[in-house]
Each structure stands twice: as structure tokens, then as C-alpha cells.
């Protein structure tokens, strides 16, 4: 197909995606240059898969730092299969961390011994802190987006975390003209958010254009249902959707007015549940 035959709307979309990509690549390269030890939180979801793809864009096919996965042991099984296959295929370093102490003691929500938020706090937040301190990371990438929900809308590209991993959202550093906070006190670390300016639709448009592999449960699983957002199996529900391709999902998302994280039960537990989790150090 010659350039003239590309529909105008498609060209506009490509230009918009190019712009998003360029900004993310700039952020990724900036963090890689400014910090000695970096890792990338890879939740195996669509966003972090796009982020991983952008790393390969930034470094011309290479993945020069490890992917970190916080495994609660309750994840949707297809996610774990996808994780191990991709790590092998793309040949990158994968570090997996589980809070075995809590998991084995059964003080979890699926066992009926904790609320959802308490369970998240132990299996996700605490394991995340462990992975960062054990490996001594100065900076970790996280694939959050501003359009996901209110607290994430307030994030910075380079977001400092205190010694206890807390996020002081009331006193964030200014960030202007793409100058990020790259100087920090020893003992603190930085969360880097290269996808901050993307939307859910952008993610799918990019997955579609680039042919990025995602966990198959994002598409109609044969019974007219699919996952819109991936998490732990007991706390994540599916949506009714016949979408079989990224393109189907894009059309669907442009018509929906239901929030992306509405299928994530822990967010709904208390009005400010997510905000509190994030302030304490969750991604």
C-alpha cells in the first residue's frame, strides 16, 4: 500500500503513536543513563508488555536490565505461562519475588483470613519492597498511566520514594520541560513512569500496530468473555466482550464509558483504598 492509500485517520493515529513512543523512549533512556542500577516492574499485563517493547525500541532490540515480577501465587495461570515463555524467547533476565511467609501462613484474602486491601498490601506491596531492597535498585520502571485512575493522574515521570518506600503526593518535585528529578538522597529511590501520558486506547493501538505479544486472556476466551485488566484471579473479573483482536478491543473501548479498573475488586473495597496503597509504596 503506498502512502497515499493510507487513510488520513490512520496517518494521524500513527503520528500520535510516534509522538507517544518518542516521549517514552526519551524517559527510558534518561533513567538508564542517570541511575546505576535499574530494573523494570513487569506485571505481564498489556501496559508493561508495551513498556518492555519500548525498551527494545530505546536500545535497538536489547534489554539491558532485568524484568521484575511480583508473583502473588494467585495470578491468572496464563500469565505465568506467558511470562516464562517470553523471558526465554527474548532472552532477558527475570527476577521473581513472592512473599512466601504470608502466602504459607494463609493470611490472605483467598483463604478468608484478610481483606482484599490487606492481602494486596502483603503480597504485592511488601514483596515489591523486598525485590527493590534485595537487589539494591536506584530506580525501577513501572507502567502506570495517568488515565487509569485519579491518584495515578497526579504522578510524575520520575517520582521519588522515601526510605520507607512512601510516596509523598503532597510534596512532589516540579517537573518541567522534560527535566526530571535525577538527584536524590542516598537510601531513597525513584519510580520511573515511561507510559504516564498514554491512554488505554493508545496501548491497544500500539499493540496492534507493532504486533506486540500479550497474554491471550485479553481476547474472547471462547465464551464471550475476556479480561480487560489482569491481576490476581480471585480479585479480577472478566468483562463480556466478543473482542478477538486488538482492533476489536480498540473499537470496543472507544464506545465504553466503564472505567478500566472497575474489574479490580480491591479498588472498590474502600473509597480511598487505592490511594492509600499507592502512598505506602504500591505501584
Amino acid at each position, binding site marked *: 500500500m503506498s502512502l497515499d492509500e493510507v*487513510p*488520513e*485517520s*490512520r496517518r*494521524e*493515529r500513527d*503520528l*500520535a503513536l*510516534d*509522538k*507517544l*513512543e*518518542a*516521549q517514552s*523512549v*526519551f524517559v527510558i*533512556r*534518561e533513567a*538508564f*543513563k542517570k541511575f546505576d542500577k535499574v530494573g523494570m516492574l513487569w506485571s505481564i499485563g498489556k501496559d508493561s508488555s508495551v513498556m518492555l517493547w519500548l525498551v*527494545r*525500541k*530505546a*536500545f*535497538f*532490540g*536489547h534489554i539491558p536490565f532485568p524484568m521484575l515480577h511480583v508473583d502473588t501465587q494467585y495470578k491468572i495461570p496464563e500469565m505465568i505461562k506467558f511470562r516464562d515463555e517470553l523471558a526465554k524467547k527474548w532472552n532477558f533476565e527475570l527476577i521473581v519475588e513472592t512473599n512466601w511467609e504470608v502466602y504459607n501462613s494463609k493470611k490472605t484474602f483467598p483463604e478468608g483470613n484478610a481483606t482484599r486491601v490487606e492481602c494486596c498490601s502483603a503480597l504485592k506491596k511488601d514483596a515489591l519492597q523486598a525485590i527493590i531492597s534485595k537487589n539494591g535498585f536506584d530506580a525501577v520502571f513501572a507502567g502506570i498511566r*495517568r*488515565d487509569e*485512575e*485519579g*491518584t495515578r*493522574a*497526579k504522578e*510524575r515521570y520520575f517520582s521519588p520514594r522515601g526510605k520507607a518506600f512512601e510516596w509523598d*503526593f*503532597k510534596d*512532589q*518535585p*516540579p*517537573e*518541567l*520541560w522534560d*527535566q526530571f*528529578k535525577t*538527584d*536524590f*538522597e542516598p537510601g531513597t529511590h525513584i519510580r520511573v513512569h515511561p507510559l504516564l501520558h498514554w*491512554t488505554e486506547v493508545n496501548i491497544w493501538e500500539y499493540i496492534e500496530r*507493532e504486533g506486540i505479544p500479550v497474554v491471550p486472556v485479553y481476547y474472547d476466551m471462547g465464551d464471550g468473555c475476556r479480561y480487560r485488566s489482569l491481576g490476581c484471579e480471585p480479585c479480577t473479573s472478566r468483562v463480556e466482550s466478543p473482542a478477538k483482536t486488538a482492533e476489536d478491543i480498540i*473499537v470496543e473501548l*472507544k*464506545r465504553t*464509558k*466503564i*472505567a478500566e479498573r472497575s474489574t479490580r475488586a480491591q479498588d472498590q473495597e474502600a*473509597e*480511598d483504598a487505592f*490511594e492509600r496503597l499507592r502512598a505506602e509504596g504500591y505501584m
Partner: protein
Amino acid sequence: MTAQPKTKSSQQPATPEDNQALEAAPLRIVIVGHVDHGKSTLVGRLFHDTGSLPEGKKEAIEKSCERRGVPFEWAFLMDAFKSERDQNITIDTAQIWFATDKRRYVIIDAPGHKEFLKNMITGAAQADAALLLIAADEGVQEQSRRHGYLLSMLGVKQVFVVVNKMDRVGYDQAVFDNIEREYRQYLSTIGVDPLGFIPVSARDGDNVAERSPHTGWYGGGTITDVLDDFEVPARDEKAPLRFYVQDIYRFDHRRILAGRIESGSLSVGDKLVFLPGGKESTVQSIETWSAPEKTTAVAGESVGITLSEQIFVERGHVAAQAEGEQRAATSNRVKARVFWMGQKSLDVGRPVKIKLCTAEVPAKLARIDRVFDASTLEVHTSQKDKINKNDVAEVEFVTEQPIAFDAADVIAPSGRFVVVDGYDLAGGGVIYDAPYDVAADAPAAPSHLPVSSEERSRRFGHQGGVVWLSGKGPRLEFARALERQLFDAGFATAMVDDGLLEGADNRAVLACARQLAKAGLLCIAIPPERVVPRFAGVAQFFPVRVGREGDSPDTLVVDPEQTGLADAADKVLAHIGPRLKRGVEEWFYEI
């Protein structure tokens, strides 16, 4: 009455894919203004009236209000944080997305509270356009002025002023007109020409997405019309190349220079010069991964290139085209307007760090020319040794090593920097003057020029300068009368307008006028857009507004239709004559 949503979500056009504008990158809008003048309310209302709210969002907020025993407010939509709802103040920049029929938007909600200036700056620095809110019942306040000034400094060029809470003043046109007059007057003193003013009641939805039945006297559009009229700033692909090296990778036996093109473009085969240092090499390839091969890259792209001859280059160096384009200036002295957000004051002589694009260099404040209050523009004359939090100042930094930069009006991205104090990003600066064509290690005097500026001013008997005509009056007619008058008074004059430079924009007219001024002439410029550039890059720059009444401190106003051409020209002559001639002697010895 609730306005009918006017977007795709309610009306369902054929398919979303049909609308090409909705595929383009969203326009980024910042909403600023004095605390409690209704920014968050406007955003909440705008979302509702354009049908952009997620399902159940309004109901959820209504329920939460009921639980808390407070009346429902639109502002709660933006204030996602619990603590914010308690304080009733937006504490940080938040962003949300919505769309009209024409295109998509990102709204950046910037807080108005003085303590949160840094958040306002973070929000505004990334915006393509701004809505500036003023409450009709309170009128122009300190933050209205300060935010107007900061928008101008941060380079936000499209500004529309929203006079909110019109319901509180009975939709009175006189109140609206007074605010418009007062605020326009202020904005003109800082060189901002707002696109317009609009009367609104955000709470009731008047003139938000629907025309208000209460403002029959107002002939303009609604907020959504205003938004749709903003233009997406074009990428600066035609400007001189600035490619700031971000990092150098060695992958698969290739040495790749990674970085972003801040302006201009580069192609395989182009000869580049790297500054500081001035080493030259040729672009051998533009590297890509999982993308079509390419031979040209333009402004905005993050790229990697290889060079045909290996030269020493490091992060912070900037590549310019070696031939045919203006190179960046290189110096260890940087003159800028700065704003300070740090808890600790910025003292003359105290070590800090400057970050400009990818360049980072230790620096010290060498001199403070003036510190002024951004809301009153009042100069604190006695303050010569430090800049306090929330101050704005004109200063000079001296850096440990030379860095490459531009004047912001020439190339914006390489004409601004941040100041890091300790671990914190504590200030920002916009460079208003750059020593082009002077090598970093050369003495300050431009000795390589065949004719020096002092020789020129001795020949002509005055310094070169630019008279910049804005305003809605008969500019061309006035310019002709003025040139005659100035010429008769002994000035060597010239005139530049867009008729002379076919299809020229303001920047081209300014560049031409600046060149003539450097040649020692007094140049009268008639720019196609009737706005005053914030940073002219000329020492002797005189903005003159033709045709509007009322004087202002920095801009001379003449009204030839009232006073006649000759009197108006006399007024200009009286204003600039002594400044240009007086300067000659002192200026000669200074250089």
C-alpha cells in the same frame, strides 16, 4: 438546566474511525487562575456537558458527598484525593482526557494556591494552550496576574480568559467589560495578547458547552468552541537543527549516539557540528529497531545515529548542521529570566547546577539585574544578592564549563533550563540573550567581525534597534510617517513587513529586523500577527501599540487616528531617540 452532551458518546457518529481528528494527539490544555475562582468546577462541568464522564462517576461522587454531608460540587470530580476533598484545594496537577466532536483533549488541572506554585508550573509547562479563570465577583487577583505572567514566561502562547461565576453578578455586562479592560491592560505590559474573554458560570453550565440564555450581550462562542479554535502547535521542523546527545551506546559493533531532535531535522549524509567543541562529522545512518528504515528524522523524534568519522562526543553536546543553519551559541555566561521555587533562597555565588536539555553543568549566580513581583511587576530595587521563593528575576549565571544554548525566542527547547539546588529542582530559567557567532574560548569582543558594532554606531550616531508595531490601528500608514520622521531626525532607518518578506511569520520578521538592527539601523517592523515577542534578542527593542487607548509601562501606545500621524510619530521619537543616542558613549566603553 442541564446542557445536552455534544460528543460522540451520546450521538454515536457512524464509527469512531471515521473522524481523523480524534485520532490525532490530544491538545493539552492547562486551566489556571486564582485560588477558588472555579477551575475544578469548570473542568467537572466541561466533562459532564461533553458527555465525557465515565459511567457512574457522577453518581459515585454524589453518594460520597451525601455520606460526608456536604453539597455536591463539580470540583470533586478532579479532586480524586481524600485529603483534597477535606481541604477543598487542588493540591497537585492532575490530568484527564475528554473529546469534543472536533478533537481529543488532555486537561491539566493546575492548583491556584500560592504554596503550590511549583505544581502550577509543572502543569503549565507542558500545555499547548491555557484557560485563565477570573471570578466575576472577585475580579483580577494576585494569582490571576502571577499566572498570566508565568504562562507568558513558560512559553504558552495561546491564552483565553474565562470570566467565571457570572451568575454571582447577575450576568452583568459592565462587570465583565471592566474585568476585561483591567486584565488586558496588565497582560499588554507583559507582552501577552489573549485570544479573547468569555463570560461563564461553570456551576450552571452557562457558555460551557451551550450558549447561555443570560448573556445575550455576548457575541462569542462557548468554552468548547474556544477549545476547538486553539491550534496544535506545529513541530519545529524548519528551525535550525538541535540534536542533544543523551547517551552513547555500543551495540553490535555500532557506536550509536542516542538523543532527541529538539528542533529542525537531520538526514543521512548531513555534516554536523557538535558544540561545545566544534568537532564535525557526517551522519552515516539513522538506527531503528522493528521499524521501517529511515534516512531523515525530524523535531520531536528520539533517535539514534551513527557517524562516519568517530569523534569525541558526550552527553550534553548538541549537534547543529555544520552548513547553512544558525549554530547554537556557546558560552559560560547565561542571561535569563528565572523563577524560583526553592525553600532556600538562591544567593549570588552559591553553587548550583544547571540542566539544559541533556547538558548539565555546575553554575553560580553571577549577578542579579532585577528582582520583581510577578503580579505587580514592581521591581524590588534593593534586592541584589538573593532570589527568594516565588520571586522572578533577570539574572546572569556563570557556568563551570561552557554550554551550548539558544535564546528562547530563537529555539525554545534549547533556550530554557532548570536549576538544581542540592537534590531538588528549585527553579527554571528562560534565556533572553545568546551570544551567537562568538566562539566559547574567544574574547567577549566580536573581533572577527569585519565591522564592529561600535564602528557602526559611531558612523550612524546612534545604536541599532527595532520598533515593533502591534495593535489594531493603521500600522502601515503610521510606519511610513514614523520612518520619515525618524529619518529627518538623523536616524538611519529601515522598514520590514510581511509584504516585503512574502508569507513571513512573526519570527521571520523579527529575525530580519534583528539583523538590520545589528547592522546599526533603526528598523521599523510590522509583524503579521499583532503580538509582541516576549524575547526579542535585541538590546534596543521598542514595542509600540498602534490604536488602543491607555498607556502601559513597557509598551508605548499611540493612537494616530485620534492625534494625527505626525503627533503619534513625535511621541515615538521622543520615547526612543534619547535612549538610542544616549547609549552610544557608555556602550562604547562597556564593550
